[in-house]
């Protein structure tokens, strides 16, 4: 099953991918979805998750309270954020 979501890239990831925001159709499984997004934008998405970049789902971090089989919904916003520490 697929869903239509908004994908955002921030800071240097926006430069790297050439995209700040776009709508994509991806598998509804979170981990499959980031594989697809990684392949589309030439990002080593899964391998560098948590070390080079992080992901916000609708503004909230992916790494807590996220089940292995977490399913994305239509109109969810997936934001790819490089590892940054403060302003």
């Amino acid at each position: 099953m697929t869903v239509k979501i908004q994908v955002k890239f921030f800071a240097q990831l926006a430069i790297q991918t050439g995209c700040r925001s776009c709508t994509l159709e991806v598998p509804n499984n979170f981990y499959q979805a980031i594989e697809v997004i990684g392949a589309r934008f030439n990002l080593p998405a899964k391998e560098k998750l948590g070390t080079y970049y992080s992901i916000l789902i609708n503004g909230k971090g992916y790494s807590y309270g996220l089940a292995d089989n977490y399913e994305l919904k239509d109109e969810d916003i997936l934001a790819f954020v490089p590892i940054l520490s403060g302003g």
Partner: protein
Amino acid sequence: MQWFGYAGKLLYVNLSNGNYEVKELAPEQAKKYLGGKGLAASILYDCLQPGQDPLGPENLLVFATGPLTGTLAPTSSRMIVATKSPLTGLWLDSNAGGFLGRELKFAGYDALIVEGKSLEPVYILIEDDRVELRPANNLWGKDTFETHQTLKELHGTDYRVAAIGQAGERMDKLAAIISEARAFGRGGAGAVMGSKNLKAIVVRGTRGINIADYQKFVDYVKEAFNEVAIHPDTGGGRNHYGTSVIYSFINEAGVHPVENFRKGKFTGTDTINEEVLRSKYYKKDKACSSCPIACSKLTKVDEGKYQGKFTEGPEYEDVWSFGAQCGNTDLGAVIYAEYLCDAYGLDATSVGNVVGFAMECFEQGALTQEEIGYPLRFGDTEAMIKTVEAICQGQGIGKLLAQGVRYASEQIGKGSEKWAMHVKGMELPAYDPRGAFGMGLAYATSDRGGCHLRSWPIAQEVLAANRMDPFSVEFKAEFVKSEQDLIAVIDSLGLCLFATFALSLKQIVGMLSALTGIQEFNSGEKLMVIGERIYNLTRLFNLREGMAPASDTLPERLLTEQLAEGPAAGQVVPLDIMLKEYYTIRHWDEAGRPLPAKLEELGL
């Protein structure tokens, strides 16, 4: 004694009698407090009688470097100024990069301690062993840019300068000290300098710094430079965008305060974000001494109403304070507002905060158009700039607002205290803790008041790899305590906090040990004990100044008003639970006083 890393001397300048004295740095003092913040804390605690007026001649102004300041270590430009704050009435240390710290070390001093008050405006000239007070009547009334230019034309461009603007001369509580466009910004140190009739400090040093184990030090420095260069933050986004790199996703996470913390997500980001800043306004990079990050970005407005205006920055905090905090979406206006703050010598974070407060006062009816002189609504860029200009010039409503939100709300009354977003009198910066609970504890327990630079849990809660749940209280007390101790170490070494994103404590210990040869600095555990000692000492300073335990809190809005939308919708900060745990972990009693056993353990 042969010193390595340290200059080994402290310069005391008394403005009341015009004398100066050079004292030896005591080895035990260095071993116990490192330098920088720790050294200044020990000097202020020992030498400043409690209860003094921060703007009286008895207050001290301490400029202190750390052992790493001025060396080849990456980001080792930092220096602190410490004093009793006129804004909070409590401990203040304010930290800046640039070149002044390095120059003071090269002149042969670890710290400059300014005492007393001059009858006439003066500046301090330091050329290695030569120390003089020079008349500054011709500089009084000039802004910081003119002051820098005049002094550099007189003495030479390789002389380093720190100066106050007109705000410091007026002793406005939001006054900053500006050193070549870097700001000792927060807490009103510029007002203390003004109260002493001290317009500027000019330093030229020609000495070097001794290194205990040169080869080892250079090896550690090379490794550290490499780490900083390859890290995705320091070698990536921060290098490209400056501190504004975090702007868009702090907003995405719903923790970017909007309109005086009434909302957590700004809708005006099409025209105000890091990408627009870079593509439309960026001109060139600038770096502090020995810094490979070069987070400072020179920007200029090429067209429109603010054409020709320029600044070094704006930093993330100021894009917020003159952006979302005031509902402004014009980055050109942000650049102009920051330029004004630098020129007049004001803390841009606090100035934007207090303008947003005044906007809420106007919209709620606590300030009228007659009192302000014009309507002051959120989103009215022109009114925002008018108000910043009024603050800078000390005119009209600006005269009141230049004293900070706590004082302004006390004078305005009418329930406006509820909208005064400060902790202990210092205006809050650009993160809403309702979307990152640890940040709330960090604000509440910061030793200088509402500040994000004592602990930065939001990096783990929202940025970085989301290692902590932002809406949980779990682990927050341990994290905040530990980071406060670590940052006390970094601020005492002379390193920039940004280096810690890339460097481990082990790498820092390596550089420090090779530099100083001091056994007491040869492990991270030992440094963390020193950090804990420093944080307890500034706590003791604040308690001695009469700080009430209830001061460890947050503005009512953050404790009781839920955010209506965004990722943090429905949240308020559960501070009490975290604070109780924090006191326990710190071995402080229920009123937040360090327990005798803890003080004994720390040698305090």
